[in-house]
């Protein structure tokens, strides 16, 4: 696979390569997320496959120029499939010494480094705890370094506009963006349009940023700083209409569509928390779809208001992250007891406690499975890519409404903020979600169940003759009357479990990608999908017999999972936690599943997974089937 690091020696002005990884990094105030997302949208519009990884600090503005204030945005784009934002970077744009220090380890040998040389004064170096100037001390000799006076050049380009120095300085990220556009032969018109729209009321600022970007582009052309520019042809994606989509946008849209397909009003009760708040923001903008968004006084009110809305007939949901999930536990138990449909989205982040608010982790799985008092099983679905969040939102809503249960959706910070090209479905591809409100008082009993789904009837207030009482006290099956009898309690506990198990009838059997049987099965869930897929692909190309199962349904698990695992000699479970899914698999199937665990607030790198695969396959008997029994 050709990348620019392989392509140094050739001299044509423009060279076609397959893929590239670009990272913008700088101070949180430097506009790196904007440069990154503009670059991403431009390559997406051109038709490349891509994956992004915005990585930003928890502090909104840590002191400028310091290490904790560094913010980054990475994108991998390609003419073939992209599964991850890339392990290592081909082009690194670093706006100051702190950003350079934090990010240089990820630049490939011989990779391109564009640095803002205007920010390497003694004071800047001190803030980054740099004893010597890396632009002078030969520590960057392994890279192709392009020191550019981003600030002075930007100011020169904006001279005539009569802006103050601070405002001009804010445009330097667009100068850097212009350089990257030149480097990858990309048109700037998409970003022009975006600027016009963004600064509708401040055309001068739109003009300033445009000029800075153009100046960056011309700078490359005029100085011939780079000997080569690169071209990455469009990817062969499945035909269709595409857009770029982040996980949080996808979830929000998924629920709007689910409500429409179910013919219900969507109600969101939520309390702001990173990295889930964007779902609240998105849905608050969808008022013309009749979406009711209630920013509650806390997470408990967020979920209990959703329970109230569900009780009165809405498609009700709540969105949060780990700490908020903890606050919602008692109410989730109530939803289990009163058997009402709500969807609880947990956009996981590093913990415990406040932990790493802006970093990703998958460590809420056991909380989702068991984090409630007594026996309170809840179905759990996990999204695997940003675009998949859309489909998971629909499926979670469908299950909640069909089985009259709360459903937990697990996403994480990496999916929430990461984006990928998403094929826009036709409305006809999206299934209707049938919903039935009982209206006939004849024979109505609040806990009389559908024999197939075990769902109780949905009898909403306002329906004449259906007046009835529900609540968190144990109840008698069928009548729903309060009941404390020992045998009734056991019956109800088993019924609630059976109801979740019954969802298994809707869970498709897993079909491993890669080898249908062999030496190793990798079982993953959630946002590790991309890294595992990329690692398995490379490892199989090297002749290893590996299968990959990525679980969307974590509770109940697919009914054939046990049999599938038996077809491989070994089972490896990579997770961004201490081994939560592997614990479940070991307990449920007595399978010798091995965990591969990374808890650094960062997604797996493909290379890390490959090294682990090689390690696992290098020891012990390798054969077909019956892992380690």
């Amino acid at each position, binding site marked *: 696979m050709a990348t620019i690091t392989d392509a140094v020696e050739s001299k044509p002005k423009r060279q076609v390569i397959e893929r590239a990884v670009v990272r913008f990094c700088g101070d949180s105030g430097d506009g790196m997320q904007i440069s990154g997302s503009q670059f991403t*949208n431009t390559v*997406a519009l*051109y*038709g490349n496959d891509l994956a992004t990884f915005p990585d930003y600090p928890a502090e909104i503005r840590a002191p400028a120029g310091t290490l904790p204030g560094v913010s980054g945005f990475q994108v991998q784009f390609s003419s073939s499939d992209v599964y991850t934002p890339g392990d290592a970077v081909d082009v690194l744009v670093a706006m100051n010494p702190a950003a350079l220090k934090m990010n240089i380890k990820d630049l490939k040998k011989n990779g391109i480094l564009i640095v803002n040389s205007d920010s390497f004064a003694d004071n800047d170096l001190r803030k980054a705890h740099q004893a010597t100037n890396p632009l002078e001390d030969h520590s960057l000799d392994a890279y192709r370094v392009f020191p550019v006076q981003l600030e002075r050049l930007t100011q020169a380009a904006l001279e005539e506009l009569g802006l103050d120095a601070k405002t001009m300085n804010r445009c330097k990220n667009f100068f850097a963006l212009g350089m990257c556009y030149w480097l990858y032969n990309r048109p700037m018109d998409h970003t022009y349009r975006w600027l016009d729209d963004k600064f509708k009321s401040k055309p001068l600022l739109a003009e300033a940023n445009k000029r800075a970007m153009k100046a960056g582009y011309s700078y490359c052309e005029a100085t011939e700083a780079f000997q080569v520019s690169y071209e990455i042809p*469009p990817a062969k*994606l*499945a*035909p*269709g*209409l*595409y*857009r*770029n989509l982040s996980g949080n946008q996808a979830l929000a*849209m998924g629920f*709007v*569509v689910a409500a*429409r397909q179910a013919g219900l*009003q969507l109600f969101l*009760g939520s309390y702001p928390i990173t990295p889930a708040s964007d779902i609240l923001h998105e849905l608050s903008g*969808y*008022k*013309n*779809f*009749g979406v*009711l968004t*209630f920013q*509650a*006084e806390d997470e*408990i*009110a967020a979920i*209990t*208001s*959703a*329970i*109230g*809305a569900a*009780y*009165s*007939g809405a498609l*009700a949901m709540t969105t949060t992250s780990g700490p908020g999930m903890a606050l919602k536990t*008692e*109410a989730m138990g*109530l939803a289990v007891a009163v058997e009402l449909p709500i969807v609880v989205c947990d956009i996981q982040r590093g913990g415990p406690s406040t932990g790493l608010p802006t970093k990703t982790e998958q460590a809420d799985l056991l909380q989702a499975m068991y984090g409630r008092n007594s026996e309170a099983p809840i179905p759990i679905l996990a999204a695997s890519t940003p675009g998949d969040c859309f489909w998971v939102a629909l499926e979670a809503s469908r299950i909640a409404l069909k089985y009259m249960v709360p459903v937990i959706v697990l996403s994480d910070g990496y999916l929430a903020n990461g984006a990928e090209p998403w094929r*826009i*479905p036709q*409305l006809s591809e999206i299934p209707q979600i049938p919903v039935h409100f009982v209206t006939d008082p004849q024979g109505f009993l609040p806990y009389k169940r559908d024999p197939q789904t075990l769902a109780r009837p949905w009898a*909403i*207030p*306002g*329906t*004449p*003759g259906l*007046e*009835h*009482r*529900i*609540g*968190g006290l144990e109840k008698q099956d069928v009548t729903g*009357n*309060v009941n404390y009898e020992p045998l009734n309690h056991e019956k109800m506990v088993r019924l609630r479990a059976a109801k979740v198990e019954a969802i298994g009838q809707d869970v498709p059997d897993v079909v491993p990608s890669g080898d249908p049987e062999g030496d190793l099965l990798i079982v993953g869930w959630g946002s590790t999908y991309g890294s595992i897929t990329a690692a398995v692909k490379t490892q199989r190309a090297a002749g290893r017999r590996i299968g990959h199962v990525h679980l969307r349904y974590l509770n109940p698990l697919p009914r054939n999972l046990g049999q599938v695992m038996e077809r491989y000699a070994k089972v490896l479970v990579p997770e961004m936690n201490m081994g939560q899914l592997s614990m479940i698999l070991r307990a449920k199937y007595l399978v010798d599943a091995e965990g591969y665990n990374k808890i650094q607030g960062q997604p797996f790198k493909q290379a890390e997974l490959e090294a682990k695969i090689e390690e696992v396959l290098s020891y012990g008997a390798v054969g077909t089937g019956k892992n380690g029994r």
Partner: protein
Amino acid sequence: MSATVPVLTKKDFQTDQEVRWCPGCGDYAILSAVQAVFPELGIPREKFVVVSGIGCSSRFPYYMNTFGFHTIHGRAPAVATGIKVAHPELEVWVATGDGDSLSIGGNHTIHMLRRNVGIKVLMFNNRIYGLTKGQYSPTSELGKKTKSTPFGSAARPFNPLALAIGAETTFVARSIDVMQQHLKETLKKAAAHKGAAYIEILQNCNIFNDGAWQYLTEKDARSEHIVQLEHGKPLIFGKNRDKGIRLNGLDLEVVQLGNGVSEHDLLIHDEQYRNPAYAFLLAKMEEMPGFPTPVGVFRSWNDIPRYEDLMANQIKDVVTKRGAGDIDKLLRSGDTWEVR
């Protein structure tokens, strides 16, 4: 609407569930008053939803033949908000206790009230945790000896109505379990109010805090210790209706009528008065030695928009401005590109 409403009676609001409060509990009287008032409101039975938290008082919905939801401790105002926002046409009442509403549910209570969600809260104040068998509550007096405070409580109590007034509640009232007629009248006034209503009902827990309100409710003491608030009428009390409340600077004083002091000198009750200091003064009276405790409607502001209406109107406005949401357009919003 009223044309199609069948004539309902108290019986229509009773359930077949065996009521499980202790014999003699004040909750019976409150249940009876509510069951008597609901059929008089001209609202179809299926429109009523009674929501509660946890506590003796929160068993209330089981005994009301309406839609009912016995939720979790303290959260009834939030559950009720979800119901009311999703279905503003429903008649949503919350039954709660002093612990449920003011301890664990304090946060939900004040936020539901300040949003002015059209929910009526009946707060059964027995100044004790009944269901958990007698610990002190946020309304128990300083020094109160209970199971959890054998040497007396060191916590200063909440004044529930002062709290509700501070939260800008648009309807604030007080009544007493044993004053059936007054209670029913107060409930009717609350029902007529569009926005949020907070009604403190002084309730006797004869098991764990018997006689908590005895100084008010004893037959001979009633008229001496209670002043009934009536809109547009002076604050007069006493067995011989010979005492009144007068404003003196920023303070209230009790005055004897006669000797040059006439009704015209007294405070004339105005439940719509906008200066919050007024309702606050009334709420504080119960704490002031020598003053009677007011019952009745402290405040009734009828022109404050309801939260659920503002929410619904916002949706209507956006739909008018942008047109009803088109899913196909939504999916295709933003920058798109075609792959062939």
